[in-house]
């Protein structure tokens, strides 16, 4: 479903991704872990179509389509969703109006009829229940004054509403209390299915107890330096990253 091959990307003159390759099959859950500043959010942003980054080499194909040819809007229409590490506050735009506009904008571009008001509200209700999002948050301005945890829940709520094919969750677990973590994980798990893949970026093995990944990758220095099964997360939790990064350095030398 998603194939990233030898991706190099920079911002200004600084190269951040340095030959990253990764492949996700349909219905798979992949976790990405790695030290701060290693390029995880950069990868997520590039997948979602942020224009600040310049891709200098490599390719990304999504369902056989050259993703780099699509702009941010077109990628969302194609079925890519990014849960932001730092969700943006948009004063004056109610959460509900925002979602209705987004959903209908996507449907229009897919040449589908807009959702009726009734169907839309039913969907809002179901998705809000899924992540136990407080009703008041639906009517407030997008993320404005939301607590850190509320923002993350709102991201998962939006994901549930938009039903993407590929969801990239960038540290959706950070800032969540233990109950919220369970709720968010439940939301994600109930969305798992044969044609939906997840790329879960996290620092904590804890999340992966709830959202059990098929694969775990270590991103360091702008590349995937190590991959393994779900047990790799436990090993990382115990030993840190040094042993992999060091081994990698030795291998390259």
């Amino acid at each position: 479903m998603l194939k990233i091959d030898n991706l190099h990307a920079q911002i200004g003159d600084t190269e951040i991704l340095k030959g990253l390759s990764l492949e996700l099959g349909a219905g798979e859950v992949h976790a990405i872990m790695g030290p701060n500043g290693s390029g995880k959010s950069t990868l997520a942003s590039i997948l979602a179509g942020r224009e600040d980054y310049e891709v200098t080499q490599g390719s990304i194909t999504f369902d056989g389509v050259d993703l780099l040819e699509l702009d941010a809007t077109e990628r969302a229409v194609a079925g890519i969703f990014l849960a932001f590490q730092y969700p943006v506050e948009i004063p004056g735009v109610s959460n509900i109006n925002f979602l209705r506009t987004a959903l209908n904008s996507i449907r229009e571009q897919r040449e589908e009829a807009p959702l009726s008001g009734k169907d839309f509200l039913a969907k809002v209700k179901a998705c809000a229940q899924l992540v136990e999002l407080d009703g008041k948050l639906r009517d407030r301005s997008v993320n404005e004054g939301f607590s850190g945890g509320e923002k993350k829940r709102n991201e998962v709520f939006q994901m549930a509403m938009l039903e993407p094919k590929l969801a990239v969750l960038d540290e959706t677990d950070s800032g969540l209390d233990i109950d919220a973590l369970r709720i968010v994980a439940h939301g994600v798990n109930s969305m798992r299915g044969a044609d939906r893949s997840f790329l879960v970026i996290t620092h904590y093995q804890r999340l992966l107890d709830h959202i059990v990944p098929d694969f775990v990758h270590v991103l360091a220095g702008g590349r995937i330096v190590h991959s393994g099964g779900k047990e790799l997360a436990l090993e990382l939790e115990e030993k840190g990253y040094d042993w992999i990064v060091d081994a990698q350095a030795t291998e390259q030398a």
Partner: protein
Amino acid sequence: MNEVAAPTQHAALAARVSEACSQAGLVGEPHAEALAALEAIDYPTTRQERWRYTRVARFLEVAPSAPADLTAPPAVVGNLEALRFTFVAGQYINGDVLDEGADGCFAGPVSLALERYPERLKGWSKSDFSTREWFAALQASAPQDGVCILVPEGKSLPRPVLAHHHMPDGVHVSQPRDLIHIGNNAAAEAILWSDNAAQSAGMLNAAITASVGDGASLSLEIVQDEPGSVHHMGHHHFTQGSNSKLTLRTATACAHWLRNDLHIVQDGTHADSTFHGCYLPNGRQFVDHHTRIDHAHPDGQSNELYKGLAADKSTAVFNGKIMVHKDAQRIEAYQSNSNLLLGEQASMYSKPELEIYADDVRCSHGCTTGQFDKEALFYLRSRGMTETAAHNLLVQAFLAEVLNGFRPEIRDHVHAVFSRRLGWN
């Protein structure tokens, strides 16, 4: 004065305007002081600070054609219950006159009020503008009809008044005056609406003069929805007594060329003024809001919020002056003006002016002009919105603070006009 010299261009304009208005019918006597001022005051030029970005040379070309077609235009905001009055090119067409007698409320055309209650209107055509500003003097020198609202002490209007001023197709000159007098502890709500036909041109030189008595309240919504190519000069003057409350909202929904001069004088202690406005020129349109509030007495409050957006090759001007007089202690005055610039060739000139002569005051002001928040734009697009849909949502959000203050029928209308003009839907 040299009697053989050719008249200056602006004197010639004044003569044309005066003749056209007189032919259509003046309402009340031309004001002597205004006539004198018209001779004495220089025609505005961009060399004067108050007119720096506001070019009025085009007015000199205005030459009214045949008399206006006085057919009543379609009603505006039909779902709103109000005492409605319609004026076309400065002449009264029809309306729901309210006349409770000499001691009661009156709502109707100024012409009728002058006929029935001349003594209640003594000095009505006087406004500070008419002796200070050339165009205001011109208006007062040949005044035409507008709505007159008189609410005596302790009374209130049973329903809001909606005065609809219309300019028909063709080149016309119109100089209406709306007059509002709210007695002590009285209350009124009104909507002053100006619109015009698509093929209209010429000049609308309109005055609104209101006084709000001690303990009284006035809530006024001004809607300017003018798709034609009329040049509109507005002189909006308000005087407030002690403990009075003025709420003024101005929506410049559409204007080819428009300047509003707003002046509020707090002429008593503990007065409260709220004045909000929004504007959104596009194409080559020009919109200019010059506001001034005088805190002349202690313990007053004012809250000013203007928001606008300039698109394409348009120009928007905002100038907000706050004058705190020497004895006006403990006043609180807040001013905010924020603008969005859409397009490389749009211009925005925003300037606050604070003159404070009292020492114990709380004043703040902030002017911002910016572009769309890139992070917000990316966030919206990452959720599947097209760039246009995302822009529209952000513009709506930007203006909501001002637009939501209007009554819903008007808010929806103004929003619909904005949407249509910017291609939001």
